[in-house]
């Protein structure tokens, strides 16, 4: 037992302070306002303070911190992207993630499990090879593996999908693929940002963004007006509501993404398994639950309702790969919101409105980008131009017909 836990046994009272302050009211003015108290927004606040000395920052969260995509995703982290732009960006994220528990002194349960993207056709295997080759070129640990390797690593898998689906031809294997305690990422950034001076205002909704002569002048909230010259929108599924406030048009459409967990089980699945053909990704949490998700819901919706179709489809896919799970029970399903772009890559950085920065278009990859987007957006806000790692993701790429080719990577990108 780690000595660190000793202090609890030795104290009569619980020896832990508040993780972050709850400021009574908003100040009149901040150097920067961040809309959205998820991992991305809190991360930006953290790095603004830590790396750029900008501490007069308010994070405005209409609900509670980490209550959006941060707390609703299936907590997978990886960097085996198809494009060099994407892979470099996510590799930086993985590097940051690995050290985050130590940096926060808060255990995020960052657990490297190895990540399989199964290919159910030769064409899909080609795409996986493409990803592997790009990854290797950039020094990222990725390899196409054959059926025997998959079977050896995940002996429980039925490589022929019970004959219900096309068999598995091989997979892209990415050893650094990890899962983490997603809520804790938001809490860690919140605590770190707070300790460095940023203010976190929960239950504070933004009602408008004041733009004068093409420049940001302030933010209207349900608790009053704030003067500021820099605003970051980091609200994922609610981005279109914010961009409407500043009159910015984007390609974003919002789709729900659903997930479910089973009852807890003793550990048996050590890898993260993804099948694009079966619309399934799955891992086993440290608590023992199987956590599984699918691709986006097939139509636009800004609501987090659950559907039975999802639970049925997910169950079918789980049984196709792991036929012995029939008697395991699904405990709960839920949904989050994803803001999708046409090229499956984020929209990040500066916008035509001076002082208005956007961190959006996260689709289904927002969680794994949390540290790097926080870091690069903070840099971008501090320097008022796009960080090198996110140049390719600027909103202007659509006007220039310079899309990022991540879409080729398949429909399920977990």
């Amino acid at each position: 037992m780690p000595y660190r836990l000793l202090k609890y046994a030795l104290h009569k009272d619980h020896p832990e302070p508040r993780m972050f302050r709850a400021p009574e009211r908003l100040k009149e003015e901040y150097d920067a306002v961040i809309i959205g108290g998820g991992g991305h927004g809190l991360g930006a606040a953290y790095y603004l303070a830590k790396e750029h000395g900008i501490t007069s920052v308010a994070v405005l969260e209409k609900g509670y911190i980490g209550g959006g995509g941060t707390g609703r995703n299936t907590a997978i982290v990886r960097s085996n992207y198809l494009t060099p732009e994407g892979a470099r960006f996510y590799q930086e994220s993985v590097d940051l993630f690995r050290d985050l528990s130590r940096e926060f002194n808060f255990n995020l349960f960052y657990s490297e499990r190895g990540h399989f993207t199964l290919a159910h056709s030769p064409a899909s295997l080609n795409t996986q090879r493409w990803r592997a080759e790009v990854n290797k070129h950039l020094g990222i640990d990725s390899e196409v593996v054959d059926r025997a390797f998959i079977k050896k690593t995940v002996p429980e898998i039925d490589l022929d999908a019970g004959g219900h689906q096309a068999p598995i031809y091989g997979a892209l294997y990415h050893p650094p693929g990890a899962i983490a305690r997603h809520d804790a990422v938001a809490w860690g950034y919140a605590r770190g940002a707070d300790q460095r001076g940023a203010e976190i205002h929960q239950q504070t909704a933004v009602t408008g963004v004041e733009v004068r002569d093409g420049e940001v002048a302030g933010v209207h909230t349900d608790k009053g007006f704030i003067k500021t010259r820099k605003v970051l929108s980091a609200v994922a599924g609610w981005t279109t509501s914010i961009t409407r406030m500043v009159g910015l048009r984007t390609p974003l459409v919002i789709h729900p993404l659903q997930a479910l967990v089973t009852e807890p089980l003793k550990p048996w699945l050590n890898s993260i398994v993804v099948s694009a053909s079966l619309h399934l990704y799955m891992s086993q949490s440290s608590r023992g639950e199987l956590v599984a998700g699918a691709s986006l819901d097939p139509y636009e919706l800004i609501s987090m309702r659950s559907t039975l179709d999802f639970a049925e489809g997910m169950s079918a896919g789980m049984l196709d790969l792991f036929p012995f799970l029939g008697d395991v029970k699904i405990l709960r399903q839920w949904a989050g919101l994803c803001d999708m772009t046409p090229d499956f890559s984020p929209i990040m950085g500066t916008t035509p409105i001076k002082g208005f920065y956007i961190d959006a278009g996260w689709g289904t990859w927002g969680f794994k980008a949390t540290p790097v987007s926080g870091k690069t957006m903070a840099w971008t806000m501090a320097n008022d131009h796009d960080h090198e790692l996110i140049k390719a993701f600027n909103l202007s790429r659509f006007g220039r017909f310079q899309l990022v080719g991540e879409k080729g990577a398949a429909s399920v990108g977990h």
Partner: protein
Amino acid sequence: MDRRLPPREGEWIDRSQPVEFRFEGQSLAGFAGDVLSSALWAHDVRLQGRSFKYHRPRGLYSLAGHDANVIVEDGRRTNMRGDLLPITDGLDVYSVNTSGGLQRDRWRIMERFDRFLPVGFYYKAFHTPRWLFPHYENQMRQVAGLGRVHPGNAAVETPKDYAFCDLLVVGAGPAGLAGAIAAAEQGLKVLLVDEQPHPGGSLNWQWSGNPAAQEQFGGMLEQVRAHDNIELRCGTQAAGAYNDYWIALVDDRRLTKLRAKAMLVATGCFEQPAVFQNNDLPGVMLASAAQRLLQLYAVKPFDRAVVVAANSDGYRAALDLHGAGVEIAAIADLRHDGEPTGLAQNAADAGIEILAGCAIAEAVPSGGKARIQAAAVCPLEKDGSLRTGSLRRIECDGIAMSVGWSPNVGLAYQAGGRFRYAEHVAQLVPSSLPDGLFVSGRANGRFELHDQIADGRRAGLCAAAHLGRFDGNLPDSPQHQASPPSHPYPIFSNNGKKNFVDLDEDLHLADFKNAHQEGYDNIELVKRFTTVGMGPSQGKLSNSNAIRILARLNGASINETGTTTSRPFYQPVRISHLAGRRFHPQRRTPLDGWHRQHGAEMMHAGAWMRPEFYTTSGSTRDECILAEAKNVREHVGLIDVGTLGKILVCGPDAARFLEHIYTGRFEKQKVGRLRYGVACDETGVIIEDGVIARLAEDRFYVSATSSGAAVFYREMQRWALIFGMKVTLINATGHLAAMNLAGPKSREVLAGLTDADLSPDAFPYVGVKEATVAGARAIVMRVGFVGELGYEIHVPASQGWHVWTSLMEAGRPHNIRPFGVEAQRLLRLEKGHLIVGQDTDALTHPFEADVAWAIGKDKPFFIGSRSLDIVKQQSLDRKLVGLSFPAHRSGPLPQECCLIIHEGEIVGRITSIAPASTLGHPIAMAFLRPDLANVGAKVTIRTTDGRTADAEVAAMPFYDPDGARQK
């Protein structure tokens, strides 16, 4: 010791059917109708499970399906709850999550370390040094989790059903029965479901000693059974409510997907525990659990009990237990004023001591903690705190808790209902309900039996009115007049630690205080940090108290504190139930059987199955493919291309329409001629290609890729509407068989089977004819995809087999052989023909793919044209080129998607490669940076093992550049 009582009126066990089962290796007997927990308790087996974190002894607690600590497995099935699992002969179960068995569980040592393990302790340690974390995590994973899976288990296939009704009534208790009857009388088709094996709800266990109530029950049940409009399904849970009253009904056998027009939620309440020291030990249970045990299973819950009560229900329970021979040592009534009804007198008459204004401070465990030996009863101060100086020890082996209720309204929540806390009942009641949703009975805050029935009837009539079947006056809902059935804060701390709020997750009161201190002061943050409500019972017995605790810590009201969201499922649902039969539609061409009979290696191609190649004994896969390809080049081959999209575009605007869809020109295309077409999306990306045959002035026959055809047809339909053109579109894809007869001998093979004039003048390259082939009506096209003289023959699907076998027969003298997809891919690569989706990706435009020649000159518009105008101004990043590899070479060959590297940079990617070709050396197609793409330039490709391979940029086509052979 046998705790089974003599037969009782209304019991659910069938004493004529004894059942033998095993628990933790011990042989025991019970009766059909018993659940595991009741049968165990009948044998005085009180230690029935261990808790999740501290491995404390746990027993029967709710007996309502929410006992998340009594969980067993049998080697096949796992995570079965003792209070849900019917016993059957031969059942042989063990408790999950123990080390060394339930009795001796070695992990119970965890409790000794509880001081080290406060809420969220795992966030505070184990992460440094980093390399040690996997070790810690592995250990934590071993102790977390419940049951084990058994990878050897065979798949279970369970059918699913659809069902339909006007009104779904959930819960066949007093309110549900009354509601179903009232609605059915107005003509509604009613489906009445109850999760229990028998209808009646609380009438079975709470009112079983009341003759008037039983008579009413009998009457309602008779009406329900007699009514044609009511279908009653017991043992059926409404597990989740989705949009438009789409309900998941789950029973032991299957999932039924129900479409209702309205829903009446009459699901009653979950009884809620009181929180005090050791309130989790076997022997402490909900009063309703004791009543269920007694009335449904005829098991005597205790010998001597203390009842802690805050409502009339507690007094009824005490009297029921007393009537069954349980000595009631005392009723500790949390209310200073005690019970206002005559029940107080009844209890006194029964000799039961009533301690008003008292709570239980502690359940005193016996050694080993698997039983209790006494209750420490303590007077309450006016502010609700314990006056711990005045503890009184009362010997007992059981404590029954009747301190309040929480409405079972998750389903109503999922259906769009919203709830607020109402002081007069001290529970949540509906604040708004969407159209078609009704809540009645206890779930609606109506607690008196006559009120429940009247409220059920009201709701049934409201449902009938909503569906237009009733236009009379709707009765008012009776209001709850008595004192609140729930205590506002049944949570008592004597500074001991083991006062549990959430038994699933082993969370006690201090955990909430500590979490709050750390700033997790919002209900959602509390939930996420403490994991309250996230265990198997999903907070049914803990959320209500958690909210009360948080509200008090925040100094806020319950309504300000809010609730967590209810998500499906009501109870965990088996994956096999949800998966059902797993319908995965698959398409087969009419020749599928022929291929299989002739040794084809079949492959999935989207929804289709196609022959990859035909096996020949003694030959490898690659040899077979090359032999098939060579046979096409030298003699003649036949391939099934039935998976190609086949679309007819007819009507006066057909040519103009195609000019909008494809990049090319079609208005002036001659009847009887084919053209190659490329189609883009609006951004200018290539999405389809194919052959467009003009059959008549107003009739075109269009082929599309196998994988893209369905979507392409759908989009064509939409564009026809948007353009407002006079076109008739017909998708004949599955209805036509198609085969390509290719090779120098193809004309000779076909000649004897068709009425068409095959002479080169009458039927030239890129010609199309409607003719008969082997007696079948056919469209015959002179295509050149594989680069030889060839005829693509399309005939009605039902005649496909006949035509194919006729061609094979006619081709026998000419060495005809069938060829598969792989040989075709090789042949077309030799011809430099791209495959959309393989040699193009999601961003490839025609300039990159080198098919700009297929863009009609000066066309005013086609889909994507405006975008291509823009793209054309930009410099080209990549270009599709041919690559040629030396015939004699050493080292590995690249595979598809290997990268071309130049000066350490990625400059290209192989899109298609043939390791062996009929040309005698490997060839490939690749994307390459245009400045490196001159014919003859050398390129270096990195193979998957990190080595390199050299190739030379080659002009395409590689084979027969003038197309002489296909002419």
